[in-house]
C-alpha cells in the first residue's frame, strides 16, 4: 500500500517545497519508490528545486484532463534511483484541480510507488485542501515564529476535520512537525521561539529540526535537493528526519549552537 504524505504549513515561504524535495529524495535513497507531486498549480517551483525544469513536457493538470498519461508526465530523477516528480502546471490555476481527478492520479501513482509526497501550496484554499485530502501522513512545516505557528495550528485543525480519513472516521492522519530555519543563537537572544515552545503550542510529535543554513539556498540555486549535500548541516538534519520517519531513533543534532568561532577557525 502506497502511503500519501502531504507537506503542508498554511503559511508561505517556510520551506514546504525544500522539505518535499529533500524528504522525497531521502525516501528514495533509502530504497523506497517515491514520487513528489507539486500541487502548487500556477506557481510551479518543485521542478526548479529538484533541477528538472527543462524536462517538463506534460504536467499534473494535463493528466487530470486526460491530455497525457502518467508516464508521459512523470520525470525520473537522474541522481537518485526510485525518485520521480509530477510537476504542476504553470499556466493554469488551482481550479483546474478536481477532487475526482486528484484521486484518480493518486490511485494511478499508488500502483508504481511506495510513497507519494504531496507538496501543498500555501493557504487553506482549494489547492491546499486537495493536497491534504487523501493524506495518510502530514509533515507540518513551521518556522519558529508566532504567525507560522498559528497557521500551522490552523492547518492541523483542517487535517483532523477536512481529510478523507477524518470524513470517513478512519484512523486520523499521522501528524509530524518539522521546524525549519532554526537558528539556536537567535533563540538564545529571544528573537525566535524555541523548539520546546513550538512543540508545546502545537502538541504534535517533532520529526525534525532543520537549521537555518546557506546550504539550503545553494542547493535550491543548484536545483539539487539539499539532503544530497551530505556535508551540510541542513542535509544531515533532513537525513535524520527521513530516518526517524522510517522508524529509526535518532537524536536531534542541531538544537544548540555548538560551534564557537574558535572551533570554526580550526575546522572543528
Amino acid at each position, binding site marked *: 500500500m502506497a502511503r500519501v504524505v502531504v507537506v503542508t504549513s498554511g503559511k508561505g515561504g517556510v520551506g514546504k517545497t525544500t522539505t518535499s524535495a529533500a524528504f522525497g529524495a531521502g525516501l528514495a535513497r533509502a530504497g523506497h519508490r517515491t514520487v513528489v507531486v507539486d500541487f502548487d498549480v500556477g506557481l510551479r517551483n518543485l521542478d526548479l528545486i529538484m533541477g528538472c525544469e527543462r524536462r517538463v513536457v506534460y504536467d499534473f493538470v494535463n493528466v487530470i484532463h486526460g491530455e497525457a498519461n502518467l508516464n508521459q508526465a512523470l520525470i525520473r530523477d537522474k541522481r537518485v534511483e526510485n525518485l520521480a516528480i509530477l510537476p504542476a502546471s504553470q499556466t493554469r490555476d488551482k481550479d483546474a484541480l478536481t477532487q475526482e481527478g486528484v484521486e484518480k492520479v493518486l490511485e494511478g501513482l499508488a500502483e508504481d510507488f511506495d510513497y507519494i509526497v504531496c507538496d501543498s501550496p500555501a493557504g487553506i484554499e482549494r489547492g491546499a485542501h486537495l493536497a491534504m485530502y487523501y493524506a495518510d501522513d502530514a509533515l507540518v512545516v513551521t518556522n519558529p515564529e508566532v504567525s507560522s505557528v*498559528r497557521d500551522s*495550528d*490552523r492547518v*492541523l*485543525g*483542517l487535517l*483532523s*476535520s477536512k481529510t478523507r480519513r477524518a470524513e470517513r472516521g478512519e484512523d486520523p492522519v499521522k501528524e509530524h512537525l518539522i521546524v525549519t530555519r532554526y537558528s539556536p543563537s537567535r533563540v538564545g537572544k529571544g528573537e525566535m521561539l524555541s523548539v520546546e515552545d513550538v512543540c*508545546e*503550542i502545537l*502538541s504534535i510529535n517533532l520529526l525534525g529540526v532543520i537549521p537555518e543554513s546557506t546550504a539550503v539556498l545553494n542547493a535550491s540555486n543548484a536545483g539539487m535537493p539539499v539532503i544530497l549535500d551530505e556535508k551540510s548541516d541542513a542535509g544531515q538534519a533532513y537525513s535524520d528526519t527521513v530516518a526517524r520517519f522510517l522508524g529509526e531513533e535518532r537524536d536531534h543534532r542541531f538544537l544548540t549552537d555548538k560551534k564557537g568561532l574558535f572551533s570554526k577557525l580550526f575546522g572543528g
Partner: protein
Amino acid sequence: MAIEIKGRMGTFMVLRMLTADTAEVLRQLDGHLSTAPDLLSGVPLVLAPADGLSVTAEMLRKVVLGLKERGFLQVGVTNVSESLASAADLGLMRNLAAPSREKPVAAAVAAGPAQVVSQPVRSGQQIYARGGDLVVTAPVSAGAEIMADGHIHVYNTLRGRALAGVQGATEARIFCTDQRAELLAIAGHYLLSDQIDPALSGISTMAWLKGDLLQIQSALNPGG
C-alpha cells in the same frame, strides 16, 4: 434546478401605529416624508399596530393603500390576529416581537450530558456543547473557540476563547488547569486577556460571575 431557497438577513422598516386614526397616521407620515423624501422608498415595510389598539381590517386596508400611494414596499403586518391579517389581505409576520426592554431571566445551568473533547482544539475551530457542560482534556489553541450552555472545564492549556453559559446561565463557570485565554466569558460578560491579571496566567484558575462582573481566581488557592 429551478429554484434555490436561501435565508437572507436584511433591513426593513417597522411602522408602529400608535393611534387608530388612519388619516392622522398618514398625515404624520407625510410630515416625515417632506423632510426626507427618499428615506423610505424601496425599503420593505411592516405595519405594527401598537398593543391595545383596536384595529379593524378596514383600517389596515386604508393605511396600506396610503402606503402604496407613497411608494412603500409593503411586506406584511404584525401584532394582529391571523383572521384580521387575512381579512386585510396581508401577510402576518409572527416572529417579529418588539424587542423586550426587560432583562432576560437568567437561565439555569443546563443539566444535559457533558461533551468530552480529547483532541486538540486548533486555531479556527469552534466547539459548542449545546445543552450541557464541555470538558476538554487537550490543549485549546489561540484562535480556537469553545462554548457551552453549562460549565467549561479544560484540563490542559487554554489559549483560545472560552464562553460558558452562552444561553444566559449566570451560574456557569470556567475551570482550566493552565489559563492563558484570549477571552473568558460567562453569560455574555467577558474579559479579554489584557484585562486578566497577569498573575493568573499559566496557573489553574476558575472564573465565575458576581453580578455583572467576571471574577477569576486561582483554583488551587481559592482564598480571594
